[in-house]
């Protein structure tokens, strides 16, 4: 159900952009109004979400420790997996955010019998490294980032040299004209893999919601329209840049004769931007906020304060002694009041 719903949603989005431009002639709406709404929603939305999380405190120091703690001087601490200071936390977070450290640990468990869907008494469980999710996730995210950075050539008149370098690296194979970008292929492949695994791995299919399929299909739609536009149904990129530069310099213009595929691509991108802050995609910001990763395991060394800590009723020693004084004295346990 989630798949068909998401497929339908993406199809409807494409049709909206198509008919809006083709039949209703809403070039300005789809080329200028929607993009402004999208970028504003994205920025404000993410800030709103982060601030909302931030308004709830982290009452306890609860890092998930994945290595040896700081202990006696002769015991080697695992400073990245169990950091005890800010530097270590920065290192741990960098590994997490840039290289998906936790996902890299992924194991798969298999049952060593004829029918692996059932485990019997004599079965032995075997754990082995499973890096496919990590690999596909990592290359997907990195490709997506590179693609976004590459697109900055549409938004800067003098394209900064760093972006040009990135673009040259990405098009390094110099296949065809315009040059084929490695990231385009990688994004297509990795999104497809992520989609397929969601459908065929029973555990993942069982937990998947429409909100899991939709972003994948939306991103697939964005990638496909982008690739079509670059290699097959070509549009004049000078016109595209006139439009995009118009947007970012707040002097919007709609060039004549831009292909509809561009508007579809743009509309899907805008949808992604609008959808982003209000969906699971906010994990982009959330990963930085996760208390099991971004805290140092030093709460035995440094006091960690809970802002809403309140006094509680406890059973005091005097209440305890009051109840058991006789028995305590008899047993030779010292008491406060003779």
């Amino acid at each position, binding site marked *: 159900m989630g798949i068909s719903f998401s497929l339908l949603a993406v199809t409807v989005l494409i049709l909206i952009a198509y008919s809006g431009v083709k039949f209703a002639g809403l070039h300005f709406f789809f080329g200028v109004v929607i993009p402004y709404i999208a970028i504003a929603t994205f920025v404000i939305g993410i800030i709103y979400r982060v601030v909302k999380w931030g308004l709830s405190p982290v009452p306890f120091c609860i890092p998930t420790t994945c290595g040896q703690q700081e*202990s006696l001087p002769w015991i080697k601490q695992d400073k990245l997996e169990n950091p005890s200071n800010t530097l270590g936390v920065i290192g741990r977070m960098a590994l997490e955010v840039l290289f998906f450290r936790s996902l890299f640990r992924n194991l798969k468990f298999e049952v060593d019998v004829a029918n692996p869907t*059932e485990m019997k008494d004599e079965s032995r469980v075997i754990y082995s490294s499973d890096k496919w999710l990590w690999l596909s*996730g990592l290359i997907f995210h990195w490709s997506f980032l590179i693609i976004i950075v590459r697109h900055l050539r549409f938004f800067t008149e003098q394209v900064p040299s760093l972006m040009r370098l990135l673009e040259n690296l990405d098009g390094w194979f110099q296949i065809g004209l315009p040059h084929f970008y490695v990231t385009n292929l990688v994004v297509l492949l990795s999104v497809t893999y992520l989609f397929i695994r969601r459908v065929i791995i*029973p555990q993942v299919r069982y937990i998947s919601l429409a*909100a899991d399929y939709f972003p994948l299909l939306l991103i697939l739609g964005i990638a496909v329209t982008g690739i079509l536009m670059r290699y097959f149904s070509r549009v004049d990129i000078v016109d595209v840049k006139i439009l995009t530069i118009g947007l970012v310099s707040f002097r919007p213009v709609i060039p004549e004769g831009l292909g509809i595929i561009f508007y579809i691509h743009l509309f899907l991108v805008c949808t992604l931007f609008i959808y982003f802050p209000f969906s699971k995609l906010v994990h982009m910001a959330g990963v930085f906020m996760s208390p099991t990763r971004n805290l140092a395991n030093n709460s035995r*060394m440094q*006091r960690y304060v809970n802002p809403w800590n309140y006094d509680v009723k406890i059973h005091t020693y005097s209440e305890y002694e009051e109840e058991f004084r006789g028995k305590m004295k*008899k047993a030779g346990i010292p008491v406060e009041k003779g």
Partner: protein
Amino acid sequence: MDTKRADKTLNIDYRFPKTGWMDTPVEFKQGMFCHGSKPKDLEAVGFPNPREWSSKDKDWKLPANWKEIVLNGMKERLDKYRSFKLFMDICVRCGACADKCHFYIGTGDPKNMPVLRAELLRSVYRRYFTLSGKLFGKTAGARELTEDVIKEWWYYFYQCTECRRCSVFCPYGIDTAEITMIGRELLNLLGLNTNWIAGPVANCYKRGNHLGLEPHTYKSQIEFLLDEIDTLTGIKIEPTFNRKGAEIIFIAPSGDVFADPGTYTAMGYLMLFHELGLDYTWSTYASEGGNFGFFTSNEMGKRLNAKIYAEAKRLGVKWILGGECGHMWRVINQYMDTWNGPADFLEEPLSPITGTKFKNSKTTKFVHIAEFTADLIRHNKLKLDKNRNDNLKVTFHDSCNTSRGMGIFEEPRYIIKNVCNYFYEMPEDTTREKTFCCGSGSGLNATENMEIRMQGGFPRANAVKYVREKNGVNMLANICAIDRAAFPALMDYWVPGVGVTGVHELVANALVMNGEKERTTNLRSESLKLATESTEVTEKDKKQRH
């Protein structure tokens, strides 16, 4: 193989139901859940809505405004815990956690996948706290809060041991333990607890320990252990109780004082401290290191924990030494000072024997006994005869809480390697931060839920079985009182012939005490001579060690 095991077949079906999880009603299976809490235990600590009820009944006698209580409770906790709010929002359902849970591996029940356990709560969060859930309902993964949902929560939040293994693998560090804790707090607001947790909480509150031992009983129980030590070594030990002016107060999980095989570990503490001439005292008021309140609500955890600092202050000790316990140490490491600190009336812990400053416990002033003993051994302060443990081929189980909520891995291993000749590691994907739970943590070690305990403990037992077959391992060491209480049954069930021990029992076996008579047995009165002969220690084995 044990013939008794024929009727204990594990037959797990990993195929998924045809219906989606929201449309698959919860089925209360025999042996998978604990008895419900009794009103007297809730009343003892002032918990809300105490009443007679049974989880097997159709009507759970929820208070009339139960829905309002739960939703307000969720709102309050969303505002109090960033972890809860964040973990409700950012899961992408990648499935990395799915097969990391010992309960999922052992039961094949999809709702035991950490992601789905969280979705049980998340679906209600979406329905009442997010716009998309209010608008799109089920399509957005939202569902109504009904009595059946409450029952499902109760069933599955007490099928999670808060072991945090899933959190190790989650790319965002989503910690199901946090979600289970919140889930249990919400249930507790409705008076829905388990007898096995609420009982010990009430005991601990009034009498100082989970078992409800009154002061004189607690003392006489330890005196019984002293007699055992006397028989074994000829040494009379006279520890003190509630003594003012001692340098150190020692806090152990009460399970060690009361039940085998934990008692041997307690004997180990007593023998070690005596040999060192340590100026320390036990307390009958703060006679519990463990904290079942932590399995109920944050507030109850704090209320039980408060006694430790209060007692340390009353007795005027300098610092606190803590015994081998799992969740006790998660609490000490990550909660105690925040709850009940600052412990500014204590001094920075310093070993009176070696002069080592325990810098990592600067603020809590609470030192783990494995840190303490490892430091002693490192400084050659103990006379150890490793051969006395030669009847044992030992493997070490990393307890969940000390692994993933603290990171104490090397200290116990260092000790074991110094007191045992034969030590073997289980496969690396089942140890250290990836360790598997005993299946009985967080208050699940009751008897009526033995089925889920055996199933949840299966992955751990399977790894023990591996080293048993490969290396002939016959002893499972650990630093957790719940492990010592839960593993004997698990080992008998899956890996018969493997015993369970605390690390300080092994220390005490090897510890050569001043003035002791020649030992003919170990702490368990097993003949050393006989045992050594029967285990066929060959030269090859000796080479293989470590």
